């Protein structure tokens, strides 16, 4: 059992959720309430990672992280090390490919808050910020929770992009999914089987916990 890889995957998943929480809230709320032109284009852009093969995203990221790209050079001069094959690079990739999973459920959550309800909050003298905290967020909360769990689980399961931009460095970019693949490649079925079983149980537990939580929340509101 490669505990280093498992811990790395959990750290990556946790940090991805933390980074995407404010982004999801901002974008989700904006898309739910805002009236803007070109909204389909924006929504399509956010959904894109869902349909693109990991190889496409992986290819673009590899080029963008490279020593020849502006992003790669800027990172090198700030952090003093290349972005490719680093945990930070992996986190950035993870944030990008989880964008649809963070935004969509949050947006659906905010859409359940009707315009009349927000008008009522404004009439009661709540400021926009108070209205967000005390009216919108509690109603949209199940969507936000769903988004977080999906992002977490999806990061644990991501393989293709990590394989392309990671470089399988233990403790840095070798996630549990890569560790399992390496064991399979080395014909070490026993180790691969153990790790796969652990991941299966953990993923199942995560999803079951969320379902239970969101049902509990729903019941409390009713």
């Amino acid at each position, binding site marked *: 059992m490669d505990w280093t890889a498992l811990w790395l995957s959990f750290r990556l998943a946790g940090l991805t959720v933390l980074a995407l929480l404010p982004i999801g809230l901002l974008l989700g709320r904006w898309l739910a309430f805002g009236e803007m032109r070109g909204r389909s284009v924006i929504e399509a852009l956010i959904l894109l990672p869902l349909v693109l093969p990991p190889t496409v995203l992986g290819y673009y990221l590899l080029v963008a992280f490279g020593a020849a790209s502006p992003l790669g050079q800027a990172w090198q001069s700030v952090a003093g090390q290349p972005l*490719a*094959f680093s945990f930070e690079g992996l986190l950035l990739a993870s944030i990008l490919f989880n964008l*649809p999973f963070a935004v969509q459920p949050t947006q*659906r959550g905010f859409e359940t808050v009707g315009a009349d309800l927000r008008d009522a909050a404004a009439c009661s003298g709540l400021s926009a910020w108070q209205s967000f905290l005390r009216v919108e967020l509690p109603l949209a909360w199940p969507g936000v929770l769903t988004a977080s769990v999906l992002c977490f689980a999806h990061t644990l399961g991501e393989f293709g992009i990590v394989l392309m931009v990671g470089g399988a460095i233990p403790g840095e970019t070798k996630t549990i999914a890569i560790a399992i693949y390496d064991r399979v*490649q080395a014909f070490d079925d026993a180790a691969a089987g153990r790790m796969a079983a652990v991941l299966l149980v953990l993923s199942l537990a995560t999803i079951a916990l969320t379902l239970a939580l*969101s049902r509990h929340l729903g019941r409390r509101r009713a």
Partner: protein
Amino acid sequence: MTLRTIPTKPLSLILAVALATGAAPASLEAATVVAAANNLQSVLPELAAAFEESGESELRLVFGASGNLTRQIREGAPFELFLSADQDYVAVLAAEGLTRDEGVDYARGRLVLFVAEGSPLKADGSFDDLAAALGDGRLARFAIANPEHAPYGRAAEEALRHRGLWEAIGPHLVFGENVAQAVQFAASGNADGGLVALSLVLAPQVAARGQYVPVPGDWYTPLDQRMVLLAGAGAEAEAFYDFLKTPEAAAIFARHGFDTAGAAP
């Protein structure tokens, strides 16, 4: 609301499109399928073309990591000839009775140090500059194939151990899933250099991106690559198997950076 908040509408739309446009794959029945290690990607199409000139045959080439191909053969993949990147995988299949015989070595690969244009490293076959770069902090990332399962990764580890650099270079290593990916890491400049297969470095699009020097042959176990006819091999697979042992094939192998027993000295 529960998990149903995932965007079902776009998903079902995509699914519908996928179902509507999904055509049946072309039949493999007619052609002889040859499974080959990734490091043969540049040489094998040329060998197949030379072979096909002499007859009306048609070969289908499937490339992959030798370990993956071995697994697929075990699961009944319809391959007739298997060209491995080492000898061990062929031995595994032979022991399980999935091959016609023990097979034969068809080529010997060579390990080179590749350094991309603009890298702080020098292409120095003695690894002296590599050792110096480790000392003065010039080296950021160095690419090899994964030694856990890739033959060229194992050879790279042996060479680095032989030179006494394995411990020091450890924190700088990035691992390609196979040797072709290690080349890609090094050639793109994302790694400062790498220990990779000569056959892949000779490809024009890689050769143009940097310099390479051979690693001394006695620093690593020879990379003998073995091929074997599989249990279901037909006449055409047999003919190609024999062709690969001819001097004509040896000359093509040599042009692509392989040594062969049959090649002229």
